[in-house]
């Protein structure tokens, strides 16, 4: 059987070109060369596989010229047509980790060549790509090279040969959301007792099934005295001054609106409308209070039910706007609300 062909990707640092000052080093293909950590990999491979080429790329270069770097590297890999692509290991180097994840994922997706990488669990590249490519869990510095290569090489061989991949704890990759069965050395009850003893002693223990993460934020304490509170209105219903002065897009909005309502007691057909493209706008355009109840809150403000209606409202368009950007908008204007002394928020959605 012929040897498995490997293409290895590393950054400028591990290629001995230089540190941060050389991070803008463009992608470079070195056919027939085994560089840096590639030596250790090659040793582990023995006769089973050989590194036929190494690709070196500066971390800043990769991340700052993402499209070009990706395209160039993909072309290099394609030309070499390896059986497997290995990136890293990146340990705790953030931009290197992201580069390894990005390019490994791209090689798999676009070239259909299996890929594997490795990095420290807290490397930002880990969360981004561990569910997309097999990613070996490494120590947080290059001092863990031997351990990393010890896991990376056999996993790469298995993947290249198309052998079944065992559970994450057996193969050393980060849990990737795919549950894989295997036989433990001790029966379940014994493992439970051992885990219990550790938990009782306050020692670290590892659950065999981490509960799905609950990305929840605990509720803040209630408003104590409404009559002294400043309440702000926010909406994802896209209410904007008539004519949409900031040109907020009807879907997939790239920014949010901030509008002063000092002296505005009622949102009328003549003064306000919706920029939202995801629902029938007729009702909101007729009377925007139907989405953003300024009229009611003004009355409550006048009657002393609430201390004050904040003089600015924030608006976004929920329709098709990426969760991440919606969150970024809210992160930003929440800080403004706090700076302005707002005590609580009413958010309306359509």
């Amino acid at each position, binding site marked *: 059987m012929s040897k498995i062909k490997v293409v290895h990707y590393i950054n400028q640092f591990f290629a001995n070109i230089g540190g941060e000052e050389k991070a803008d080093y463009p992608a470079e293909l070195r056919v027939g060369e085994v560089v840096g950590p590639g030596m250790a990999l090659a040793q582990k491979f023995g006769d089973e596989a050989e590194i036929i080429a190494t690709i070196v790329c500066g971390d800043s270069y990769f991340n700052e010229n993402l499209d070009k770097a990706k395209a160039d590297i993909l072309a290099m890999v394609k030309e070499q047509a390896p059986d497997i692509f290995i990136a890293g290991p990146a340990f705790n180097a953030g931009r290197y980790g992201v580069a390894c994840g990005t390019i490994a994922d791209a090689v798999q997706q676009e070239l259909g060549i299996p890929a594997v990488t490795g990095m420290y669990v807290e490397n930002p590249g880990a969360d981004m790509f561990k569910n997309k490519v097999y990613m070996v869990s490494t120590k947080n510095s290059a001092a863990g090279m031997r351990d990393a290569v010890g896991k990376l090489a056999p996993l790469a061989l298995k993947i290249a040969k198309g052998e079944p991949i065992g*559970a*994450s*704890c*057996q193969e050393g990759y980060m*849990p990737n*959301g*795919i*549950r*894989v*069965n*295997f*036989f*433990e*050395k*001790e*029966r*379940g*009850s*014994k*493992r*439970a*007792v051992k*885990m*219990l*003893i550790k*938990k*009782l002693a306050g020692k670290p*223990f590892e*659950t*065999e*099934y*981490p*509960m*799905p993460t*609950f990305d929840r934020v605990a509720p803040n304490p209630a408003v104590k005295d409404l009559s002294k509170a400043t309440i702000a209105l926010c909406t994802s219903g896209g209410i904007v001054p008539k004519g949409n002065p900031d040109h907020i897009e009807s879907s997939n909005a790239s920014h949010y609106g901030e509008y002063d309502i000092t002296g505005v007691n009622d949102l009328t057909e003549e003064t306000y409308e919706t920029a939202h493209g995801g629902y029938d706008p007729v009702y909101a355009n007729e009377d925007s209070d139907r989405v953003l109840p300024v009229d009611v809150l003004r009355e409550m403000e006048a009657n002393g039910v609430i201390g004050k209606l904040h003089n600015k409202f924030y608006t976004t368009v929920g329709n098709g706007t990426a969760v991440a950007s919606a969150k970024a908008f809210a992160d930003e204007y929440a800080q403004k609300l706090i700076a302005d002394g707002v005590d609580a928020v009413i958010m309306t959605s359509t």
Partner: protein
Amino acid sequence: MRLEVGHIFIKDIQFGAESKIEDGVLYVSEEAVKEIVLEDEKIKSVKFDIARPGESVRITPVKDVIEPRVKVEGRGGIFPGVIAKVDTVGSGKTYALKGMAVVTAGKIVGFQEGIIDMTGPGAEYTPFSKLNNLVVVCEPVEGIKPHDYEKAVRLAGFRVAVYLGELARELTPDESKVYETYGVLEGKEKFPNLPRVAYVQMLQSQGLLHDTYVYGVDAKKTLSTIMSPTEVMDGAIVSGNCVSACDKNPTYVHLNNPVVHDLFEEHGKTLNFVCQILTNENVYLADKMRSSDWTAKMCRFLDLDAVIVSQEGFGNPDTDLIMNTKKIEAEGVKTVIITDEYAGRDGKSQSLADADPAADAVVTGGNANQVIVLPKLDKVIGTLDYVNTIAGGNEHSLREDGTIEVEIQAITGATNETGFNYLSAR
């Protein structure tokens, strides 16, 4: 409570003219056991067979697996409230026939499940492939209702097991183990510095083919309660559950409850094993609220430091498991829970039907949806007719070459949620 369990190793089972145990061989008189089974008029006929480890034999559809035992000293008898009269068991001396089991098989409902392969890849997944099995295949009388048939087969298995256990009454055990628990104060004095630990066992209790009996009482009609963990060793809990082969607890598992055994291993060393708490898995949500309230309340009353919670079954019990865990943790009592997973054939789906961050220490019996191909074996005890429709099978289950493609949920004990098996997942 103090119970001594004597182990009598059975290295083989053979049919013989007279039932007896000699030099570690169990000889079974077919005539005698036949008579015992046919005591029940709902059973029309019965066949016996022997399946030994390594033989090319498949047993299916399995209903229950039972270890023969006999009570030689102390109150009560094996299977109190079911076979023996109601009396508190769990003290004195009991002998168990180790290395063997009585396996009841037969079709109770059309979608029945349960495979025990004695060799090949399937054998790795079922703990019962390591035993010498006396298989009892019952045929019911015509027109019988499934619940009557289930009961008849359930009880027939127990009667046969008790009969075989009796054969050991006058023997000398090959080895003995002593299990002892103490009263609340007594235990505190004896082990003043050891953490107080209990075992919370959730019992399947949802209806026909989903029932468990405690001293003969249907568990769905019980409030959460306390037992000495030695009571199960005398058959205080028996299975009436024949659905979900991979994660149901056969009576064998109740008798040899692995959590009970492994906690006893640490008893007096790293922990004080205080008691076993039983609770159920009813269908009605308010029952769940009540049962989990009681479980948590007892954990507090008993001043426990930690518990292990085990589950039985899929779906509905996930909710009980999480409710118990949250409430027990909220009482300041630490938990480790044992469950299994239904993560889909590709392993990508969410494993449980419920979840909570309080459940931070989980032992898993593996993904029950994993697909496995079982080879054709020389002999089938029971019938393959139903393999097509057993849980985890599909229309292609029984393939032309005689191999069977099934999810491991069809294999008896594969993902057991008391931690009886070695399978796990990550």
